[in-house]
């Protein structure tokens, strides 16, 4: 088993939480893991990404080679496109469609969505709205994670366990919200896959 994942977003959007959940799940089943993060300057509202690698064999490089990522998981739509050079031909692009606009020359949203739809394997969802319906806009990143879940090759309950571990300290309500967010994202993706036949 090998999963090379690019996590993408804007500094402060919390992509590292997604990485932690997947990481905890992977470690529970004894997979090897490497995760390169971006710290420092670009965290000031710049574009940030993390290279997350899982494998049942020892992993050599902290960086995923260009063209070999199995998946891009992005919490921001324009950022999802920034890492296309990394994505393999059969790879999946999973992205939130809510834009984060902190630059004057941000492109038109329709153009971004059109760009995403050109990618053969993609799931695009409005994670903020889905999260709001569940009761917490802050869980949007977990909705995105849920949408990625069917492609991770990790048992779904491992991700649930990881959410329990990660949010356990914050109480049952927070855990419950996050589990619901995970499921909502997951269901969205499943519908999309099945809809394609």
């Amino acid at each position, binding site marked *: 088993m090998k999963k090379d994942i690019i996590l993408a977003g*804007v*500094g402060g959007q919390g992509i590292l939480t997604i990485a932690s959940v997947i*990481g905890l799940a992977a*470690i529970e089943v004894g997979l*090897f*893991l*490497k*995760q*390169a*993060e*971006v*710290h*420092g*300057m*670009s*965290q*000031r*509202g*710049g*574009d940030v990404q993390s*290279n997350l690698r899982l494998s049942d064999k020892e*992993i*050599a*490089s*902290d*960086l*995923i*080679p*260009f*063209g*070999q*990522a199995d998946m891009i998981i992005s919490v921001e739509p*324009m*950022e999802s*496109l*920034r890492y*296309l*050079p*990394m*994505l*393999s*031909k059969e*790879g999946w692009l999973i992205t939130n469609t809510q834009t984060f606009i*902190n*630059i004057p*020359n*941000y*492109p038109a949203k329709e*153009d*971004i969505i059109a*760009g995403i739809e050109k990618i053969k394997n993609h799931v695009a969802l409005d994670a903020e709205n889905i999260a709001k319906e569940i009761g917490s806009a802050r869980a949007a990143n977990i909705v995105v994670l849920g949408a990625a879940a069917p492609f991770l090759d990790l048992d779904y309950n491992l991700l649930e366990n990881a959410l329990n571990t990660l949010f356990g300290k914050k109480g049952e309500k927070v855990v419950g919200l996050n589990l619901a967010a995970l499921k909502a994202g997951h269901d969205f993706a499943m519908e999309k896959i099945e809809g394609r036949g």
Partner: protein
Amino acid sequence: MQKLLLLGAEAIAQAAIDAGITGIFAYPGTPSTEITEYVQNSKQAGEKKIRSAWSANEKTAMEAGLGVSYVGKRAMVCMKHVGLNVAADAFVNSAITGANGGLIVVVADDPSMHSSQNEQDSRFYGKFAMIPILEPTNQQEAYDMVHYGFDLSEKLSIPVLLRITTRLAHSRAGVAQKPERGQNELRLPSDMRQFILLPAIARKRYKGLLANQALFLDDSEKSGFNKYIDGPDKSRGIIVCGIAYNYLMENYPDRNVPFPILKITQYPAPRDMIERLVGACDEILVLEEGAPMIEELLKGFLSIGLTVKGRLDGTVPRDGELNPNIVARALNLKDTYGQDIPDLVAGRPPSMCVGCGHIDVYNALNEALNEYSKGRVFSDIGCYTLGALAPYNAINTCVDMGASITMAKGAADAGFFPAVAVIGDSTFTHSGMTGLLDAANDGSSITVLISDNSTTGMTGGQKSSASGKIEAICKAVGVEEDHIKVLKPLKKFHEENLKIIQEELAYPGLSVIIPRRECIQTLGRRMRI
């Protein structure tokens, strides 16, 4: 024991705790900051009473670490690569004094300049000082090398440089811990003159350092960190340093590289191993993260006889960090690429946060400077450097920490008026205040804005050594009290702030303006707790 999932930086910190350090000394700097933060937040380090607060700058950190070593205890000193320029005097001379208790200097380089103003390779400093260098390839090796490095430092009585780069510092992997070791007892050097670098003593000690090179080299050959891995195809031998090893292996999924490999992770460069590789192979490819140090060593000035490929002949790009694809191309292996980034994707550079006090400072300063010609603002390193970008376009220089005040002073001394310096609070106590002393002593006509957000913002909000002390320092170095002005950078005070800045700009003498408002990031964090 279960493996810990740690950043490379954190693995180094955990190892230092486990190896029995008494103190860690550092000034923040990406990508080294997390080492010291990990110790500061570690319960285990707290119980062991390991000293870990931030130092004013890298030089004071280095010297304090040397003091710990003098009394026989173990110390770690951490900094980013450019920090070693600041600590260089102490660092280079510590090779002559030697160590007593184990001393490791961790320097984190930033090839590709993700968060830095250059990509200097610290191995050159280690070579220059003539001390052993360790360069781990992964998180586990980083952990193990800290243990080994402290033993080596004590065995050979010499500080050891541990060189890492951004990718290792900021990448997480599983790390197995070693048993914990206690701290050293207090024990002064047996030679009480060891640390007195008077010329007569220094000459003797320098001869000792030169003589010890053979021991350092011997350790490089035998410690087991440098590895010769034979391969059947001798048409090419590969020398691979530090983290570059991972990128090489990534290109061989079954980990069977057909060529002989020399993996270098300890310096001085292992001469016997290099000779063996050169003797066995038709040509040598050198893969190193950073500058072509080994490559230059092999190539020599005249390039006679041996074909050496690497950064100097374009087989590998001359600048920037390595990655698996660059290594694939250097080996003529299959390169891979996804698809191009669509044109519509716009750059998203870092920027000052919404609500940041530096923004109000620049809005007022820009307006105050409207009546003068452009190009008057000498700035410095910190979040406020982002004032260089649109829409502010507010600063004209950023060179090294502290250079704002001194460059403004130089310009003023050359007859440029008004000249303005903009510096942050942490940078001011790092190395701005000595420049202010120069300006006061010289009566230089400059206006210094110390934009005080009461934290070390750019590196994530570490405690600033300047807290609560700025006015007193300015007064003490000789700035007239009437020309030390504190103001609150908020939109609603724009007019009065503007007026103060205008007045001080017009004043033909030294003045300091201190706009003071807490960083909104640290404020937000405080409010959440």
